Structure formats: C-alpha cells, structure tokens
C-alpha cells in the first residue's frame, strides 16, 4: 500500500537520475526502471505511459549520506517494466532535461511462439507466453503456466482421410485465469471437424508440477496433398510473473499463486498458446486400381446386408439394408446399392449413420433401399459391393456381400377367379394362386355351409361365363355395332331424302308440262286449220281452267270483270294479252269478224305461260 502511495503525483523535488536495466530483454522478461531524486519523498512522480509496456512500482528506497558534515538524502523508486509484445520501445524522459530511454524487446525464442510471428493471421492476437521447458513432447510457456499439445499419427496420411487427433491444453493450476476459446488449427491446409464441445478434464503432473489438462477429440481432414506444418493454438488468459526469473526466487518459494498474487508477483495477460509445429505428409489417393464405384471413402470398412423379409408378394415393398461398419471418413461413404435389377423395381437408398465414438470416425452407416418385386417365384438379388481406400494397406479394397434369397408370391391384387383354388380349402387356402373359373366350379358343385349363419350359401354354377368384367356394351367390339349402324342408317337416310326431293321436283315439272300440252292441243289444231274462232274458243277454255285452278274457283264462276280485277291484283305481266284473248274470242264468236292476219304462235305462248304458271 505504501508503494502505491508513492505512485501518486507530487510536485517536489524533480528527479535527478533515471536508469533502465537491462536495455535489451526478451519477451516474457522484465526490465527495471529506477528513478532517483534528491530529498526524502517522491510523491510527485508520474508513471510513464508507453504502449506495449506495463509499468508497476515494486519498491522504494531512501538513502542518506553525510558528506563533510552535510547531509544528502536521495530517494529511489523502482518500477518493473513488463513488455506485452516484442519491439523497440522508447520511454520518454521523466524531466524536460532527461534523455528518453530505449528498451529493446526481442521475440520469445524459447517456446512454440515463433510461429506466431511468422503467421500474418496472428499479428493482432495477444502475445504468446514466453517459451519454457520441453519434456515428453510437452513444451510449456516460459513461466510454465500452460501448454498445448496435439497428438498426430506417425505416418503419411491421404487426402480425404479422417485422422483422429487429440488436442490437449494443459493449464497450471492458479496460473491460468481462463480459457478464452476452443483450440484452432493454424493454416488452411486441413480442416478440424467434429471438435467435441466438452473436453475431457484430468489432473496431471508435468515436470513434477500439477496441471489441469483439457483434452479435445477431433478429426483432422487434409484437403490437398503435400507436406504441411501443423500446429494448434488456444487462447488463454494467464497470470504472468512480473519479476525477472532471476528475481523470482521468492515467488517460487511462495509457491501458492494466491500468495504470489497477494504480493503482486503476477499480472493477468491474454495470450495464445501454440503447440510445437509438426510436419505431416499428405499423399494423393492413387488413380491406379481405383474402382468405378469408389465414392471417396478412406479407412477400413466391413459390410453386411439383410432384407426386411425373406418372403413377400409381388408388389410388396421390401427393404434391402447395407451395413457399412469400421473406421474412416463416413461422410464419404456412399453407394447407389442396386440399380436396374431384372424383375425388381428399385428406389434410391436412404442412409443413416450411428457413430460409436465421440468424433464420428468409428460407427456404422446403414443404407436402406426400397425394392418391389414384379415377378413371383424365388429371387436372388445381386451381390452388393462397396469400394474404399485402405490407408494401412495403401490400396483400394472392394467389400462384397450377398443379400439373402427371397421368395416372392403372386400379388394379392392378382387374385383372379379361382383363388383359392378350392372353396373347400377354407381358411387354409392360399390367396393369389392363379387358376381359372373352371377350377372353381367343382368346388361349387358341393357348396359348403357358410361359417356365418347370416351369410347365404354358395351357388351351384349354372349361369354363363363372361370373357370380361367390363359390360358387353362397353367393349369396343360391341360398341362399334350401334355406332356403325347409326352412321350407316343416317347416311342412307340422308341420301334417300335428297334423292326423293329431286324426284318430286322433276315429276311435278313433267306433270305440269303434260297438262299444259293437253290443253294447248285444240288450239294448235285450230291454228293448223286456220280457224280463228275455234282457236280463241279453245284458248279461252284453257285460260279459264288454268286461272280458275290458280284462284281456286270453278271455271264457270269466272266472269270478265272478275278476271280483269284478279289479273290486275296479281300484277300478271300477261294480263293485257289474256284479256285481249278473251276479247278476240268474243269478237270472233259474236261479231263474225274475220281474223286472217292473226299471230297464232304469240297467242299460244301467252296461254302456255299462263298454264305452266297455274300448275
């Protein structure tokens, strides 16, 4: 507490001398800064502020000298300078007239910290603890507070191989304040998989000192061939001694960290502790002799197979299982199992993995493939194979297993008439045996009594048989009949109808022509004889009959006035001609006029047109 009081700033007397010893140290060591001033106190001292250096007051001394009767008192304050990183540090002068001091801190040259400075990824990480002793493959930090170790196989490994590794982080009891994260690999040439979240914890003596050792089990997977240096590191917060090793005998004598902390002998620091780098040679998988079904599995495996059932019916789904057991990279263990098997329908398999260790290197991977048989009878499935690379024998291996034989019965869905083949078989009948209805008939001849009193008895087979369960009227051969008949009848009817229509029209025309000719006959005879009176009389008779028929009158009811009115009403184009014929007829009949220059043809055409129009 008194030492701390000295650290408070005071105004009186200025310092006269500042020394730093030694001027060059290694990381993990400390230097001593001594500030000497005249007088009996140094309350006004301000501790220097330098990035990367920690100053701590560790002592104060006073000295009184009597020279020639004069008393000269000096006071010295001793500061412990602890570097946090390597480099060259400049400690500014404590007074305006004093020169700055330079402290050179070399990198740690003892423990596995060298790799930190060679790895740019670690430039901003906390400093490593100084290197310490190394025994039994364990190299502790400089102050012996912690160590990190990785156990690797002592052989060459292959790309894709799963390499089990144990990562140990040892922490001296009381010197390590906290573990700040999981161990990580340096470099990108490997991946660290399946790191157990909860490490094993044991107490162990290393070099006679008690350590708490945390062990993580993990899998190292090289991603490319080559020779690589491998190291693992772990972030820690440790208590670093604040006195130089040569000055720390008292600390060692105190032993108990609590006591050391009490006396201010340690300080908390975040450091990253690395394991000693180790070289590991990674080989590429050979291309020679590589099986076509090789999926990248590297390790040592065994396979076995089984079926969900050894008897099934056609169409029943079965499950074929392939069990792959052993040690290796199970994430690359894969197989399509069976593909395109005759009489079988295959589906893609599904896989599941059950590990037998904490890191998934050992275990059993099971592939389940659904299969459906399409043909009845005893069936033998093809052998299942699985290829992998064995790093011990350094060659590809192909494991083989034969699935058990299976007997396939006809499908239940194929239970056609006659199955069971005998009705008397009763409960012991095996459904699915295909027979015909004829086979069922003898059974029906002696119908058994139904087991249930509510069920009606069997029939004696008397009805006719059918070729199909589809009704006859829906079968194409039968359905074609009415369709064709309807089409034929429709076509025939259409043709007949069209022909009849044409015939009626022609007949009607013929009848009209004949009727007109019959009425014109007397007119033509009179014309040939030159008898105009007879001509016009015949013309009047013909016109009267034709027009009376047109107007639905009796010929004798047709008067001259009525004739003129109806012709006008009909807008008959020959009305004038018709009326003139009637007038000429009267004139020839009653006036006795001689009509020598008459145009018989013209009047004949007028009458004929009226006759045809009337019919």
């Amino acid at each position, binding site marked *: 507490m008194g030492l701390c009081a000295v650290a408070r700033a005071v105004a009186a007397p200025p310092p006269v001398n500042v020394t730093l010893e030694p001027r060059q140290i290694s990381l993990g060591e400390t230097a001593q800064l001594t500030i000497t001033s005249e007088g009996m106190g140094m309350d006004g001292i301000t501790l220097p502020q330098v990035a990367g250096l920690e100053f701590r007051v560790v002592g104060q001394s006073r000295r009184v000298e009597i020279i020639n009767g004069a008393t000269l008192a000096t006071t010295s304050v001793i500061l412990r300078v602890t570097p946090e990183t390597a480099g060259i540090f400049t400690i500014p002068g404590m007074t305006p007239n004093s020169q700055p001091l330079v402290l050179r801190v070399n990198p740690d040259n003892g423990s596995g910290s060298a790799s930190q400075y060679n790895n740019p990824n670690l430039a901003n990480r906390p400093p490593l603890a100084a290197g310490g002793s190394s025994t039994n493959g364990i190299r502790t930090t400089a102050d012996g507070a912690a160590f990190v170790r990785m156990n690797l196989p002592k052989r060459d490994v292959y790309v894709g191989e799963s390499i089990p590794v144990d990562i140990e982080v040892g922490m001296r009891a009381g010197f390590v304040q906290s573990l700040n994260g999981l161990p990580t690999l340096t470099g990108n040439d490997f991946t660290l998989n399946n790191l157990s979240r909860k490490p094993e914890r044991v107490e162990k003596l290393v070099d006679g000192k008690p350590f708490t050792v945390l062990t993580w089990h993990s899998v190292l997977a090289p991603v490319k061939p080559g020779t690589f240096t491998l190291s693992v590191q772990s972030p820690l917060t440790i208590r670093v001694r604040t006195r130089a090793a040569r000055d720390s005998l008292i600390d060692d004598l105190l032993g108990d960290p609590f006591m050391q902390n009490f006396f201010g002998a340690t300080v908390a620091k975040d450091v990253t502790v690395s394991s000693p780098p180790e070289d590991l040679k990674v080989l590429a998988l050979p291309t020679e002799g590589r099986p076509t079904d090789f999926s990248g599995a590297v390790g040592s495996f065994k396979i076995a197979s089984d079926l969900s059932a050894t008897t099934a019916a056609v169409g*029943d789904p079965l499950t074929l299982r392939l069990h792959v057991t052993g040690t290796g990279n199970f994430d690359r263990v894969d197989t399509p199992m069976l593909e395109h098997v005759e009489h079988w329908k295959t589906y893609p398999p599904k896989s599941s993995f059950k590990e037998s260790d904490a890191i998934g290197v050992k275990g059993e991977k099971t592939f389940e493939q659904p299969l459906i048989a399409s043909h009845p009878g005893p069936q033998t499935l093809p052998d299942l194979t699985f290829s992998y690379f064995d790093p011990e024998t350094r060659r590809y291996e192909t494991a083989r297993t034969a699935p058990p034989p299976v007997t396939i019965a006809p499908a239940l869905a194929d239970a056609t*008439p006659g199955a069971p083949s005998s009705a008397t*078989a009763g409960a012991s*009948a095996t459904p699915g045996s295909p027979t015909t209805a004829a086979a069922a008939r003898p059974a029906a001849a002696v119908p058994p009594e139904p087991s249930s009193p509510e069920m009606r008895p069997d029939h*004696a087979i008397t009805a006719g048989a059918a070729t199909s369960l589809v*009704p006859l009227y829906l079968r194409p*051969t039968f359905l074609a009949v009415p369709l064709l008949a309807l089409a034929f009848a429709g076509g025939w009817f259409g043709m007949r109808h069209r022909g009849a229509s044409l015939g009626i029209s022609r007949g009607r025309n013929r009848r009209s022509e004949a009727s007109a000719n019959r009425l014109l006959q007397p007119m033509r005879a009179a014309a040939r004889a030159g008898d105009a009176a007879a001509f016009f009389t015949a013309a009047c008779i013909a016109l009267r009959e034709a027009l009376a028929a047109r107007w639905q009158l009796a010929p004798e009811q047709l008067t001259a006035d009525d004739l003129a009115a109806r012709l006008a009403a009909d807008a008959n184009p020959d009305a004038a001609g018709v009326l003139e014929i009637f007038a000429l007829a009267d004139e020839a009949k009653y006036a006795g006029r001689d009509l020598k220059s008459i145009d018989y043809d013209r009047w004949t055409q007028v009458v004929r047109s009226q006759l045809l129009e009337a019919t």
Partner: protein
Amino acid sequence: MRAHRDTRILLSVLALLSLGPVVAHAAPAPYSADGLYNLANSYARAGKPGLAVLNYERARLLAPTDPDIEANLRQVQKSAKVPQATPSAFERAVTIAGPTTLSWTGLGGILLLGASLVAGTSAGRSASAGGIPSRYRWLRRLSAVLGLALSGLTVCNAVVVWPQLHQAVILTPATPVRVAPVPMGDPLFVLPEAETVTMTAEHEGFVLIHSHGRSGWVAAANIAPVVPH
C-alpha cells in the same frame, strides 16, 4: 323395286354388324358370377374380407340383381366395419338385368330404331312401290318408341355401372395412404381392409385413390381393382 333393294341392303348390313358382338361374346370366358360369388364366400370364411369384397363386387358386376351377392357383400362389409353404399332409386331402376342382357337389349333397341327409320323413308310410297301400307304405320311408331326406350335403358345402365369399373378394394389391414407415390411418402391416413375406393390415376406402382372426400396414394400391392387391367 329400288326401294326394296335399299331396304334389303340396310338390313343386311345391320345383320352383319350384329355378328361382331356375337363373335366377341363367343371368346373364352373365365369369369362367372356364381364362381366369383363362391370364391368370395370362401375368402369370407377364410377371414380375408378384402378379397371377399373384391370378388363380391366382381360377381355383382356380372349379376347385379342377385340378392345373395348383395346380402353377403353387405354382411362382410358390416363385419369389416367399412362403409356400405346404398343404391339410389334410379340405380335400382336401371339395373333390372345383367349387363350382358342389357347389351343385347340395347342393340335390339338400336335395330328397332333403324328399322323404323327405314320404314319411315318408304311411308309415302304405295305398297307396290315398297312402301308400308298406312294401316301398319302405328307399328313403325311403336318400334321407334320401343327402340328408343331399350337403348335408353342400356345407356342409363352404363352411366350407373361406369363408376364401378374404376373402383378398387383395399386388401391389407391398415393400409397407409401416402401423400406421394413413393414408399417413403408421408402417410395421410389409413384405410381399413375391404374398403371400396375409387381409382383416378396410377404412377410407378402406386394408385391415386379417393375415399369419402379424401385422396392419396396407395401401393398397388395393397389394392386390387374391381375390373382387372
């Protein structure tokens, strides 16, 4: 004379076409309503309600009016605790005979219709010209009405029977109905053995079925169509 010749040709063609169904009907006949009924009885006694219902349904297609088939089918469905379909009045009315009988009935009706059509074309002619005397025209009308009724009965029967041709029966107990036609498909619901369902599609060994408003995929091994493919 020409009308006589046309009528003879038409009737000859219809008679020749009628031989087609006769030939088709004369093919080997593996199905018998009585045989299927007896088979279904044996399955029922053997404790296999699925196969029993399947064969009852098949027997009923051939002999829909057989009361024994209907009674035993209902008995088995009741024992298996599966729903039973009750036919409507229309279904009962148009199922007065077996499909084979109705097929010939329908064909006869069509022939009657054709004959009345032929007779109608000669109605305007005299008897000497190949026409039908007017005193027999009622016969032509009667044959037309009868032909229409018989063929209509067959068509109505086909409308009723058509859905039955796409039915299937569950053969295994607690058959899972899956959401997809793959063995690993998630089950939607479970159907009891002997339930009759409607098939609508098939895919890769699975059948899409509908049952009481629900649908899903059933493995073809667990189901049998009433009318085999």
